[in-house]
């Protein structure tokens, strides 16, 4: 019994020490960011990644579902993610994204915005020169300054002009 207790104490010490770590890598659930320099492409495997890019020439995030990606003060931003993503770009030259279903893409104060989004996505572009949207399912696209975007419905849903000025693939 005494030996067993001592063994358990040793194992307990090992387990306790193993429970804590802190680092600065890009992993699900923990924010990671890239700034400064020329190029940075952040890869994060697993759901729930949270990537941030700023003050770079080219920057991008490649992540899975429930990914949050922010990009600003960058020449070219890119995001590739799975479903339920939240992509935000502003104050850059170009921002492009490919995202899955239920994507929220917000692009403003940008020369070019472009997104290919999955079903049930919401797209917002404002203060841009050009905003091209491709929806593979239903989506809702709001554009301001200028008030029109180039929206393509790649799936079976038809292009619909909504009463509030937004455009939808499928019903408003």
């Amino acid at each position, binding site marked *: 019994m005494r030996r067993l207790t001592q063994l358990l104490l040793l194992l307990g010490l090992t387990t306790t020490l193993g429970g804590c770590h802190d680092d600065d890598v890009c*992993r699900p659930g923990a924010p990671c960011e890239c700034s400064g320099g020329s190029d940075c*492409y*952040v*890869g994060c495997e697993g759901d729930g990644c949270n990537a941030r890019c700023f003050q770079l020439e080219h920057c991008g995030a490649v992540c899975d579902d429930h990914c949050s990606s922010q990009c600003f003060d960058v020449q070219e931003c890119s995001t*590739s993610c799975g479903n339920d993503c939240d992509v935000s770009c502003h104050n850059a030259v170009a921002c*492009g994204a*490919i995202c899955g279903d239920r994507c929220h893409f917000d692009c403003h104060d940008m020369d070019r915005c472009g997104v290919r989004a999955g079903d049930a996505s919401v797209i917002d572009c404002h203060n841009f020169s050009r*905003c091209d949207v491709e929806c593979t399912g239903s989506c809702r696209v709001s554009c301001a300054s200028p008030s029109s975007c180039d929206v393509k419905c790649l799936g079976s849903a038809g292009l619909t002009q909504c009463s509030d000025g937004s455009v939808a693939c499928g019903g408003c």
Partner: protein
Amino acid sequence: MSSSLAPWLASVALVSAVCRPAAAQSTIKQPGEHQRYYFEAEPHLDTGLVDPPGFGAGTGLGVGFRGTIRLLNVGFVPKLNDSVGIGFGVDYLRYDGWQGPRGTCERFVTGPSGVPICVQASSSINHVSYCYLPVVLQWNFWLHRRWSVFGEPGLSLYFQDGKLELAPFVLYAGGRYHLTDRVTLTLRVGYPTFSLGVSFLL
């Protein structure tokens, strides 16, 4: 004798009675009074709890082996029961993080508006394997019939992501619980790995 002193005296007597066998088994002041062996073979499980040298990060898990050749049966301190050996190891660990260079996109596609979109980044690898080859000086202190401890300064070569590098300084401290005269449970803590294994004193 006052009655208030009685409990104290009883306590002292009890503690003395309990501690005497343990003190009697202490071997730290008896140079050379430990199991004679020439080689310690120690397979173990490894964990890396701090960021390793190089670009790995996070927590590592793996397996390893340490072989220690006894050099001195009586160590550097003549009045103590110490001994010295040289240890050679191999430890394979897989870490769940990567903090190497970010910045390489391995595949772009052209998105709407002609913006290039990265769909595969090199930093998507967030696992990395390490193979350490430590060489250490093992300084043992034989405290008790059942317990011994050691310190292990040294250096280590390591393979990481296909490259061979040198960690100029590694340091471990460990303890053994002697299950029998020849078999011990051995815990080692330090940088860059922790381990728990069984040592065979051959």
